[in-house]
């Protein structure tokens, strides 16, 4: 049942831009943010809230811009290298941050990300300051497409990656390492007495979550065509936590459901009123009050109760 539902959802997403072309950009950004929110959701399984994951989103986006300016012009290579940049940044920050828990972990993530934001905004000669850096359209398997065609390629690539990376993350969460990650939330003492190094379990999760945020950042950089320091601002990090909680951390699809819901709600609300924040805020209050497991929790519960 779950496979049929997922396949139907992916198929619907694939044909939506044909019916409403403006949706393609919105959906590409939603998927990109879904990757980053999935990174946040991975850490939430261990009970760790990061209010700084936009840093990895931005690190990867800036990675794309710098690498493109250095002459690398292949979409696949740029994606791969920029995700590695985010993972490496995650390994460095994580080695220090995974020693902390609860509010200390959240605040230190926030602090580190704001240092990164400040560097992006102030190092004008390197990063372009608040003007940011342009991201040129890269080649796809050696072919340089016109912008509209490239944006379509990027959308369908993002969709395919959503399925493939989503499956890989689910596999990780089902593995002993994934279960150990969830166990951190409930009983670190028992984990230590099982001979499991908690710091290593958390560091691996942190690097994976940074890489996921990085993948989202790279896709956003290509979709928008420019990277700016605001990618790393704390409100962007808060936005990712919101998406993860809204979608639900009970399963991998939750992050993408949350991102799609929020992006589509935002797009619809801005067409109705200038006070679109009010509509978005009210909707979020309702969802969070009546669906504490997130939107995905609603699907999961229905599936569990079906014969």
């Amino acid at each position, binding site marked *: 049942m779950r496979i049929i539902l997922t396949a139907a959802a992916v198929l619907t997403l694939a044909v939506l831009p044909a019916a409403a072309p403006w949706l393609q950009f919105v959906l590409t950004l939603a998927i990109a943010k879904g990757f980053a929110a999935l990174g946040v959701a991975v850490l939430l399984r261990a009970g760790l809230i990061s209010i700084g994951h936009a840093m990895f989103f931005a690190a990867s986006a800036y990675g794309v811009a710098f690498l493109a300016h250095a002459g690398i012009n292949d979409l696949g290579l740029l994606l791969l290298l920029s995700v590695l940049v985010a993972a490496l940044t995650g390994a460095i920050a994580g080695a220090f941050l995974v020693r902390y828990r609860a509010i200390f972990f959240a605040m230190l993530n926030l602090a580190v990300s704001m240092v990164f934001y400040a560097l992006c905004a102030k190092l004008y000669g390197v990063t372009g300051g608040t003007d940011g850096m342009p991201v040129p359209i890269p080649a796809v398997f050696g072919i340089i497409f016109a912008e509209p065609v490239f944006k379509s390629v990027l959308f369908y690539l993002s969709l395919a990656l959503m399925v493939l990376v989503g499956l890989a993350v689910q596999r990780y969460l089902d*593995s*002993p390492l994934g279960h150990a990650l969830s166990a951190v939330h409930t009983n670190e003492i028992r984990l230590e007495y099982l001979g499991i190094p908690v710091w290593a379990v958390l560091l*691996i999760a942190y690097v994976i979550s940074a890489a996921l945020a990085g993948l989202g950042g790279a896709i956003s950089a290509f979709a928008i065509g420019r990277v700016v320091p605001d990618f790393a601002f704390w409100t962007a990090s808060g936005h990712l936590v919101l998406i993860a909680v809204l979608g639900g951390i009970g399963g991998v699809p939750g992050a993408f459901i949350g991102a799609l819901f929020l992006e589509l709600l935002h797009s619809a609300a801005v067409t109705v009123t200038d006070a679109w924040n009010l509509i978005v805020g009210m909707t979020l209050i309702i969802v969070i009050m009546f669906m504490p497991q997130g939107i995905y929790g609603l699907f999961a519960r229905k599936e569990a109760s079906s014969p």
Partner: protein
Amino acid sequence: MRRAILEAKNLCVAFNGVKAADGASIAIHDGEFLAIIGPNGSGKTTLLNICTGYIRPVSGSVLLDGNDITRLSPRAIARRGVARAFQIPQLFSAQRVIDNMMLALAAKDGLWSAIRPLETAQRRDEAMALLELVGLDGDAERISSTLPEGHRKLLDIAVALALKPRLLLLDEPTSGVSALERFPLMEALMSALRQRRITALFVEHDMDVVARYASRVLVWNAGNIMAEGRPDEVFGNAQVRERVVGVA
């Protein structure tokens, strides 16, 4: 005399001036089932905490197979074959009973596989066999936080057994277990320990359990050893009867 697996020598530790260990030394030998009894607050659990690296003594040393493990972490000591079951069960309360077991089995033989699932047919069979041993096979799919306290205790012991230890430290294994389940649990536990050649040290307040199952008894009082010997010898000691058994 059999060789000592674990030796604690001249241990000293105090909390707010109260001595939990005051220069005491103990040894547990291969194949033994050593019981430690004593009044509440006498430092029995502290002794287990020291032996498993959770607390470091002010002075003294702990040797495992002759190697000093005093400064090692609980994780490092666990990886050397020492497992522990707790007085208050330490479980992954949000996970299923079977997942608690399979994670313990995976910790022993393959945690680092991020690709293969936790649940394999072999691991599940092994987990179910251990759950059957402690009588929890019917609860395998339950979330462990929903188990009654006695069953949580049994699961905690099963998790420790899943590590296939050489030495098992049990902190009041029968507390919280109903009177009806107490002796069947101990019979199953003893059978598992003998089959798997596991040496065990257990802290216990139930003197009937101690008398029936311990091969040696050590009486711990105010951080020191008050008496030591076979159960009949120890329970025949007037001082022990007066100061420990009567109040234990």
